[in-house]
């Protein structure tokens, strides 16, 4: 029997392997190849061109800044929301459903929605004007207001992508038997202590998944930024887009793509290491 069945698992995963190979691995190799080829033979020309570009260091800085601000905020917000949602007895599904609506909206649509709110003639200015706070249209998203633009992007990203963290954390919280927190409470742990000493450590595997997913996506941030600020707030994925479409330079665009991938892989490796759960500590 074993001899006869041993090929079955491979046969069953073969379609997915072929699929992944065709649609993921091949383009990946092509992109890497493209990024190292300029003119004839292998070279680092594309990378030099990328690094020498006026917007490059700004894009790196902005992308990291955005990630470092947005991801921790999202985790904290999602933790708070998840804790509250799991405490609900009635209407939990409804609340969860409402909270996850942004997940169903494409990031470009989300960016445009926030643009409608925040642009010069947007709803925010109309409301502020009606309240007499401002005298005329105020620009929040221009090059002259980089801080406001940054916060607008942070806000839109929080609104758009916190729900995915929330969903992962709620799933994780539901896996933790309630007796652990109850035992801690019996033995004198106050709510905050229970959260830090019991819930958070037991939630580590879910936190790890959520952080990896959100961080990787944050490094790829593009559509929301593009909708709100255009190139007023350069980010890595945006630069790749500009080099690809406006400058028609596929090599430099590929170099950006490879850079984003390298950063994502590095971040993932850090999370896997720092937030690892030793097998003997699994419940």
């Amino acid at each position, binding site marked *: 029997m074993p001899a006869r069945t041993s090929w079955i698992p491979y046969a069953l995963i073969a379609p997915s392997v072929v699929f992944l190979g065709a649609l993921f691995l091949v383009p990946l190799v092509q992109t890497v190849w493209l990024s190292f080829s300029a003119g004839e033979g292998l070279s680092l020309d594309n990378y030099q061109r990328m690094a020498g570009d006026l917007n490059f260091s700004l894009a790196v800085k902005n992308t990291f800044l955005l990630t470092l601000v947005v991801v921790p905020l999202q985790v904290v917000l999602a933790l708070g929301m998840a804790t509250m949602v799991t405490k609900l007895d009635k209407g939990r599904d409804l609340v969860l459903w409402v909270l996850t609506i942004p997940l169903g909206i494409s990031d470009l649509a989300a960016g445009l929605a926030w643009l409608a709110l925040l642009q010069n003639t947007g709803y925010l200015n109309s409301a502020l004007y009606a309240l007499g706070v401002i005298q005329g249209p105020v620009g929040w998203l221009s090059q002259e207001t980089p801080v406001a633009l940054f916060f607008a992007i942070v806000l839109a990203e929080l609104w758009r992508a916190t729900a995915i963290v929330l969903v992962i954390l709620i799933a994780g919280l539901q896996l933790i*038997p309630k*007796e*652990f927190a*109850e*035992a*801690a*409470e*019996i*033995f*004198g*742990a*106050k709510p905050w*202590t229970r959260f830090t000493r*019991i819930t958070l*450590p*037991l939630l*580590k595997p879910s936190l790890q998944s959520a952080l990896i997913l959100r961080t990787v996506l944050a490094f790829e941030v593009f559509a929301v930024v593009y909708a709100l600020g255009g190139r007023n707030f350069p980010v890595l994925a945006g630069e790749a887009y500009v080099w690809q479409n406006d400058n028609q330079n596929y090599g430099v665009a590929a170099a950006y793509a490879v850079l984003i991938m390298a950063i994502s892989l590095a971040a993932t490796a850090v999370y896997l290491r720092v937030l690892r*759960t*030793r*097998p*003997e*500590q*699994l*419940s």
Partner: protein
Amino acid sequence: MADIVIDRVVKEFGSFRALQEVSLTVNDGEFVALLGPSGCGKTTLLRIIAGLETQTAGRVVIGGQDVSNLAPRKRGLAMVFQNYAVFPHMTVFENVAFGLRMQKASQAEVKRKVERAAALLHIESYLDRYPAKLSGGQRQRVAVARALAVEPAVLLMDEPLSNLDALLRLEMRTELKAVLREAGTTTIYVTHDQTEAMGLADRIAVMYGGKIDQIGAPLEIYATPATRFVGGFIGSPPMNFIKVQCSQGQARIGDAALPCPSTGKDLELGLRGEDAALSANGSGIPFDVRVVEPMGSHLLLTGAIDGQPARIVAPPTAKVSAGERVGLTVDPARVTWIDSTTGRALARV
């Protein structure tokens, strides 16, 4: 003083009534066992005392203070959970130390008390291991050690020894009883194992269907069950119940007669298997033996009295064989009379 007063506590889950007006007083330093079949509400009652569940009605008073609306951590008690709830991300040492750490005990005190509790439960050798590497019985002992380490005034235990093998269970039982007695800990001990309850408890509260059927000392409950359920639940083999007619204060079974309370109601004779003796000449209550099981210390006879199933305990050397009809003599003072309709015991005659 840490006495516990449970005053007419009711618990409803939706439309289901898990506890119906349960009242129970546990004196300071007393060991009370909550005994009953699975699903009768033992865990629910314990969780209400701990404050992990809110009662629908009624009060819980500990040490003279009404704790009905107090958070669990303010009730000054420790608890052993039915499913252990040993923290998987902490070593056994940190698990046992948890309560002491919450009390901000000094490092030396933590070490001393953890080691003492660990020695008591025989878990010293795996203090630096993680619970995932332990068996169910070992985890259960960690949970008990965690509760004992804080030297609580009130200790609630939910089937704390259920996962130990028989020998270790017997040993732990004895040690637990000695330690808790010495410390003067007021203890409520939930179990569905009647021998555990009999062996450990000062008093037993027998629960059935969300009610306490009877509270009393082990021997009292054994000898004078208040309901048919208690008689049938306590003792091995369980009490026999034989439907009889009682007229003019006499119940006739075969050629034997027993004095009975004439109330005009349908009666059942509650008879413990070991309270019947084989008569020398076959006179007395006729018992048709169907199966003879030699148990070593005694013979277990299964058969019928007056066509109704019964189990009788006979001396190991008795000469009885299957298919035989023997006579039983019964001390009228040791039988229980049950009202067939209510299932409650009647006053003795």
